[in-house]
């Protein structure tokens, strides 16, 4: 029997109260109290989480992407440098950072420089509110979900800045395409995410995770938790599609479209800036996966293994899914993309809201 939703929250936080679990843990471990302790704990916690995410991105970019693409294409990729080829990450880092930073003459300077900073850091900012299990949760405001979406959308600004400031027609086209795409798919994304709110009644991320821990049904002794993906798979599929469009992956990789506009908004960036944008793309994919995991897949929940491990597994699964889509799905044309976004996905996400209301009513 499904338990009514308004009941207890389990695990980490007290529902309805903003908190900063990780910061508190660190401050407590260091023995520093008061405001100084909070600030120190927050800074150290942010440092820790950012490093963890960057390490995962560094593994995902040079190494995992090549290995996965090779698996799809019947090849053996990076296996020479280091065990399983993992030292290729070091080699790539050295190679990319040692390149000359060429700035085109007519580039709009402050915007040109700020854009590659905006893209990865907006994603890292979003990670601040994601609950990763085992107390690793940097900040838990009452409006956590809104913050996550807002932080992720700052990247659109970065994209259009990169596109316009490069003084290059290809970049301009790429920037315009990306802003059109992001606008079109932001709304279905947020709406579908908002349908989760109907289910949980709270915007606080820990509350959302907590609401998904109850049992949905018991099939032959195996307890199926109330993950929102199981409750409303339609919303899950819509959210995944909108997420693909937000991070700019096939079939929606038009802003980058290498075979049409030669790298789109990234065309004029080299060396450090390119590394920032490249990593930024991966961090956005992981952020998208993290939000999807939190909203739909119960966050850091799972049997046996600690929560953090499950969380990592889930965001890597999302990454694998984007790579899989990249190998097999063609990209849509820009006018078809806009059509799908405004006419198809928008309508479907509104329908999804109604559907969710019905499901919640049934469950309650």
């Amino acid at each position, binding site marked *: 029997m499904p338990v009514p939703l308004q009941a207890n929250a389990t695990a980490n936080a007290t529902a309805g109260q903003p908190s900063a679990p990780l910061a508190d843990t660190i401050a407590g471990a260091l023995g520093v109290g008061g405001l100084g302790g909070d600030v120190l704990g927050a800074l150290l916690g942010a440092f820790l989480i950012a490093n963890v995410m960057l390490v995962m991105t560094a593994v995902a970019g040079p190494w995992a992407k090549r290995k*996965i693409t090779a*698996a*799809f*294409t*019947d*090849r*053996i990729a990076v*296996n020479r440098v280091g065990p399983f080829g993992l030292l290729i990450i070091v080699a790539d880092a050295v190679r990319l950072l040692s390149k000359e930073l060429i700035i085109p003459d007519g580039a709009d300077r402050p915007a040109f420089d700020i854009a590659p900073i905006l893209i990865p850091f907006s994603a890292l900012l979003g990670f601040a509110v994601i609950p990763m299990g085992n107390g690793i949760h940097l900040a838990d405001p009452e409006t956590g979900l809104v913050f996550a979406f807002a932080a992720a959308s700052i990247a659109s600004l970065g994209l259009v800045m990169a596109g316009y400031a490069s003084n290059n027609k290809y970049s301009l086209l790429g920037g315009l395409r990306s802003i059109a795409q992001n606008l079109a798919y932001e709304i279905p994304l947020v709406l579908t995410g908002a349908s989760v709110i109907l289910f949980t009644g709270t915007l606080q991320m820990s509350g959302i995770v907590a609401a998904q821990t109850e049992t949905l049904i018991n099939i032959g002794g195996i307890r199926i938790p109330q993950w929102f993906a199981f409750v409303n798979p339609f919303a899950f599929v819509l959210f995944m599609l909108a997420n693909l469009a937000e991070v700019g992956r096939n079939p929606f990789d038009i802003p980058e479209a290498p075979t049409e506009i030669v790298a789109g908004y990234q065309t004029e960036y080299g060396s450090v800036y390119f590394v920032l944008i490249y990593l930024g793309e991966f961090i956005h994919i992981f952020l998208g996966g993290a939000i999807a995991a939190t909203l739909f897949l119960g966050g850091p929940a799972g049997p046996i293994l600690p929560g953090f491990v499950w969380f990592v597994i889930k965001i890597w699964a999302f990454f694998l899914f984007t790579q*899989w*889509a990249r*190998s*097999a*799905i063609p990209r849509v044309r820009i006018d078809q993309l806009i059509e799908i976004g405004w006419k198809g996905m928008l309508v479907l996400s509104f329908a999804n809201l109604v559907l969710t209301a019905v499901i919640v009513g049934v469950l309650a």
Partner: protein
Amino acid sequence: MIGLLKGMATTMKHALDGSTFTVEYPDVAPEVSPRFRGVHKFSQERCIWCRQCENVCPNDTIQIVQDDQRNGEQYNLHIGQCIYCRLCEEVCPVDAILLTQNFEFTADTKDDFVYNKEQLKNVPWYKDIDPLASREPDRGAWIGEGEGEVDYQ
């Protein structure tokens, strides 16, 4: 939607079946067919300095220098300029120049690729395969004059 999903299933099948089409060169030497046209090998004992190879080369890659008594002095072949068409081997009446299967050769500058007759003599056989043996059946197929056995020793 179905077409999309079928496409994705196809690529996932390739990923999961674990077989690869590539080989790990240079740990694994690639399969080279016996007729493969690689670097030339020149035999000064057999060459009769008829200059047919120089004549037929489409690229002017072979340069032969003879003294005024028509003795052969230099035989230079630019293996970087050569297009490996094998016409020189084809017109040579005595099999003095032939193309081995060797495709691995390096140099520091393009000029180092001009091989004189010493260097051409020293070109190694690829995996010790003698290409003449693989050409042997073909020699007999030449314009109906090929029934007899040609003995070069």
